[in-house]
């Protein structure tokens, strides 16, 4: 496991897990969910990264600009920053591993961001975990008070975002992912914005009783979902 800041200035945080066995010449990028959801899924995504490295993948997981360990000022972040982060992760991993084949595991809103770059990047397999297809749906769960701000920013679980960025997120829509082989693991509480079969997404249901609105400590450990995601990737 190699944690580091990338870029000049070094403001893009990511962790690389290089393959521990015979290499598959295949990389895995993990697009984590945003804000509090990133904390709740951290343990599970780390487990998946470690499993994948043991299986021969070179793995890279990263923090979106303005979130987590990122040194980017969150008030300067827009939708292009977050989709650009996915591009940056793909470029970095290709450069470091030399692999041309890449799969992406994307969780919640991370799926909509990864899907939006999948049309212009060569991604072999896009696996979602409770994917959010529309920014509007994700924002509705956050219960944002857009009226209550004095400096043009709103505070989302420790991260100040420009009101204009919230409008960009509301307009984010994923209508299809035809350009890439896609599947999704969904937990009991997940609901789809559109029928996944119309989107070209194969769905595998997990028995984990995950509830994104009221997470409990036990949900740090989504064993079945982790197992099913590993199955999809292998």
């Amino acid at each position: 496991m190699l944690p580091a800041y990338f870029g000049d200035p070094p403001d893009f945080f990511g962790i690389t897990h290089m393959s521990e066995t015979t290499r598959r010449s295949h990389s895995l990028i993990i697009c984590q969910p945003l804000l509090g959801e990133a904390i709740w899924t951290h343990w599970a995504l780390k487990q998946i990264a470690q499993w994948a490295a043991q299986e021969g993948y070179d793995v890279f997981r990263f923090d979106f600009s303005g979130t987590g360990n990122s040194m980017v000022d969150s008030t300067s972040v827009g939708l292009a920053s977050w989709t650009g982060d996915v591009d940056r992760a793909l470029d970095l991993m290709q450069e470091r591993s030399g692999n041309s084949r890449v799969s992406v595991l994307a969780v919640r809103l991370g799926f909509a961001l990864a899907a939006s770059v999948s049309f212009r990047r060569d991604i072999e397999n896009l696996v979602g975990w409770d994917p959010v297809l529309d920014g509007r749906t994700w924002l509705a769960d956050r219960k944002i008070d857009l009226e209550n701000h004095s400096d043009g920013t709103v505070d989302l679980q420790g991260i100040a975002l420009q009101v204009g960025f919230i409008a960009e997120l509301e307009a984010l829509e994923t209508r299809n992912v035809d350009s890439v082989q896609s599947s999704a693991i969904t937990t009991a509480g997940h609901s789809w914005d559109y029928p996944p079969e119309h989107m070209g997404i194969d769905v595998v249901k997990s028995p984990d009783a995950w509830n994104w609105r009221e997470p409990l400590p036990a949900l740090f450990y989504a064993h079945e979902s982790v197992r099913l995601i590993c199955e999809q990737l292998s």
Partner: protein
Amino acid sequence: MRETAHLFGTEQSLFGVVTHPQEGSASRTGVVILNAGQVHHVGPNRVHAGVARHLAGAGFITARIDQSGKGESPVRSGLVRTESLVRDFDDVESYMSSLGVDRYVIFGLCSGADDALIIAHQRQQVSGLALLDSFVEHNRLRYVDYVLRTALDFYWVRHAPRNVVPRVKGLLLNKGNQVDVRDWDEPEVMNGYYNDFIDRGGNLIAIFTHGARYYSRRGQLASALGASRGLKEIYLKDASHTYCERAHRESMYSHISEWMLQTFPEN
């Protein structure tokens, strides 16, 4: 200001992010930030990243770590809690001393505050503690007091749909998040940790929030310890336990950096 990511220790297994002040402005006092419960090194509502950057802005080198068994760091097998906590501290201290740090303040929220007390009891290099919702001795009427305060508190009434209703629903369905997960020793042992630390000249800032249900009156910690020397005690009555609101986080950051600059002024 810049940040660097590390794997500390001879086994290169303890994960941490170090926030460095501007070149040439670093203090010889460093800050080590522990995990809040199972939440990783970024902290709930990004509190740990925020406080690290705030303190680095004031000149203090700050390391926020994932203690062994949490976040990115694997468990140290075969060690009991205290041994593991101390080994973690020793590993990060070994790195920070190479940057010129020779005394330490440990920051901890919730169970991180409990861990900080234990480390300070074991390591003389710890000169300061910045504790959020740490242990304080309380009486059996604390929950009655908490309910009364909540009922009379305009903030909680205003936020009832978001805060109170889900909690009541959770309690009724027996799925609430009110489970007491703190692993406290007996009060005399915990008070002993505080008193031993203060008696050897340590300095302590303790900030309590409304979320600490056992904290029912201002000055409760000083009163329980029987002394106020070396102790600064603050109550942020509107703040939640994990500092959900920006204004409360900024208030907490300011209190801690002001206390740091007053207590360790050699910058």
